[in-house]
């Protein structure tokens, strides 16, 4: 393949990374503050996609706008979920059996409700934008949707950063992430902060879900492949770091995209260059995960001497 084609792929990978980041960031903040591995995250992604889908079909609201609308709606939804379920969980500094099973159970319920509401055929959001692309030369063609989605994702990440650093809520969240006990001593209401955090996490899941819904066709069990990717990304990012997530997203996206096109030498009746068969592509995220766990458990962040707590 020619250099230009590689460039084309690289661009696509970076655009993909944008969505990946938006998708994983919600999970990071929830884990950071509450030490809960939110398996229901996948369910929220799926609901986000359907949310945009419904808005688009019923009221012809552009899915991008739909995604933005998803933020407040899912924020409230998340707080509700926290109030009804999550707050009863025992506190712990590592993920507990109870929290895992609870969130997982909730994911199952979400899936089933979606199934009851929308059936299991694959829906997708078809806008004029969907099929058009920006062409540079005759090899490079960037789908417009991906551009829009990327822009939206980056925008929201920036907003999140501002929330983190400028707002009282952001400060207390960071406090809780860095030192739960200390934070409570200086008077951070951790129940309240947890509730808000869970809301925030859910909001971002819904938002990302809506964006993903513009890129892929979706059904009630839409979330799982993305859940796994989110895991890989947050582990890459060191679990509690937003900037780490951005980094992790890029690494994953690039690796996924190039894994099947870059030939590598392999011994099979003599040394030859081989491609990774595309059918093995879904293994890449997991392989990456294991690699990171073995080499640098603290995530990419550990490459830098100062640990990237949410900052």
């Amino acid at each position, binding site marked *: 393949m020619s250099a230009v084609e590689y460039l084309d792929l690289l661009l696509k990978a970076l655009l993909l990374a944008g969505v990946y980041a938006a998708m994983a960031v919600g999970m990071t903040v929830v884990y950071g503050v509450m030490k809960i591995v939110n398996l229901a995250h996948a369910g929220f992604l799926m609901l986000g996609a359907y949310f945009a889908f419904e808005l688009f079909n019923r009221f012809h609201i552009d899915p991008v706008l739909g995604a933005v609308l998803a933020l407040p709606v899912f924020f409230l939804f998340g707080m509700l979920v926290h109030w009804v379920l999550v707050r009863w969980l025992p506190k712990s500094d590592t993920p507990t*059996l109870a929290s895992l099973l*609870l969130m997982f159970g909730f994911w199952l319920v979400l899936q089933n409700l979606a199934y009851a509401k929308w059936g299991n055929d694959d829906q997708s959001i078809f806008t004029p934008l969907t099929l058009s692309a920006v062409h540079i030369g005759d090899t490079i063609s960037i789908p417009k949707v991906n551009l829009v989605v990327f822009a939206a994702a980056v925008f929201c990440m920036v907003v999140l950063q501002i929330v983190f650093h400028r707002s009282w809520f952001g400060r207390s969240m960071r406090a809780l992430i860095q030192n739960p006990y200390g934070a409570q001593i200086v008077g951070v209401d951790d129940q309240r902060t947890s509730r808000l955090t869970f809301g925030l996490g859910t909001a971002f899941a819904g938002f990302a879900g809506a964006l993903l819904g513009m890129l892929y066709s979706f059904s009630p069990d839409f979330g799982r492949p993305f859940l796994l990717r989110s895991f890989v990304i947050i582990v890459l990012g060191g679990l509690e770091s937003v900037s780490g997530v951005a980094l992790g997203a890029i690494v994953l996206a690039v690796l996924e995209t190039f894994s099947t096109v870059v030939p590598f030498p392999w011994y099979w009746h003599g040394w030859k260059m081989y491609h990774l068969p595309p059918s093995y592509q879904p293994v890449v995220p997991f392989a990456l995960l294991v690699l990171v766990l073995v080499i640098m458990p603290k995530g990419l962040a550990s490459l830098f001497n100062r640990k990237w707590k949410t900052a």
Partner: protein
Amino acid sequence: MEDRMKAPRNLSGWLRVILPWALLASLLLLPAVDSNANLMRLLFLTAVYSTAGLGWNLLGGMAGQVSFGFAVFFGMGAYTTALLMHAGHSPYFGFIGGAAIAMLASFFIGLPTFRLRGPYFVIATIGVTEAVRVIMNNLDITGGASGYRISEDKPFNPLEHYYTAIIAVALAVLVSTIIANNKFGLALRAIKQDQDAAAAVGVNPYTSKLWIHAIAAGLTGIAGGIYARRAGFFYPGDVFAFQTGINILLIPVIGGIGTIWGPVLGGVIFIIVEETISAKYQDFHLLIYGSLLMLIVLVEPGGLIQSKRLWIMLGKLLIGLFTGTTWKALFGMLRGRRFAKAQHIEE
């Protein structure tokens, strides 16, 4: 907690220990009374799932390490058994081989993750299921996504499968009991509560987890092998499916995490639910399991086997059995044409 057996002091104590075993043993005699194919099938499935569930329970219940990845061991057991039988070995050798491979696999997951604190293990278990399924889908020697078929020359004998499964459960229960009642079990419970404190009295959490994970994997592998041999055909999208891992996890959670007989009860309930409720309301089986999970976590963390309500109810039922009055009622209830009808379509 029932996960340790106090030396029985009185009649009641002895009953608690002996009765379950006696009834389990009596299942071996059941076919003599009634060997109806459907019943054999259901009890076989119950036994297989309970075995896997008991395996999960050793890790999840005793050592407190949640794994969503037991499908991997189930599948490994299935494939290893199949391949060994294909190579002309006895199925029973196959089961052992399956257990061995499953144990080996468990180390690959455990070694990198158990050393770390935090969610790494559970994340890895979810990842590994997906990864292994995809790899098996593409592996030619095992027929890839097209699956693998076991063909035995001798005619199919449901009873043999049935007995194998029942014995497997007995084995699993035995293993659980032994572990729960020696120092290892004690150490696992300590790790579950406070890893550092456990280390401070000389328990090595890392190796302990590795070993219990391996034992659990082994039992699940055996279950997989037994299942595969009877099914005759299986493929990665089935034995390695995420859902399979979930089912294995549901069983002890429903029955009673960390208890010895809980997973067995869980297996029974699970199969009954599968066969009746979720067969009748397929569209809601995720909902059923999801809410069951949440309910148990929030209301009955001990699982049904430790739920006072349930067992007072059954106590009442027992009186009936003793006085013999409710046999009819009971069977009237269970011999429900309801269940049979569920499958028919009314014209």
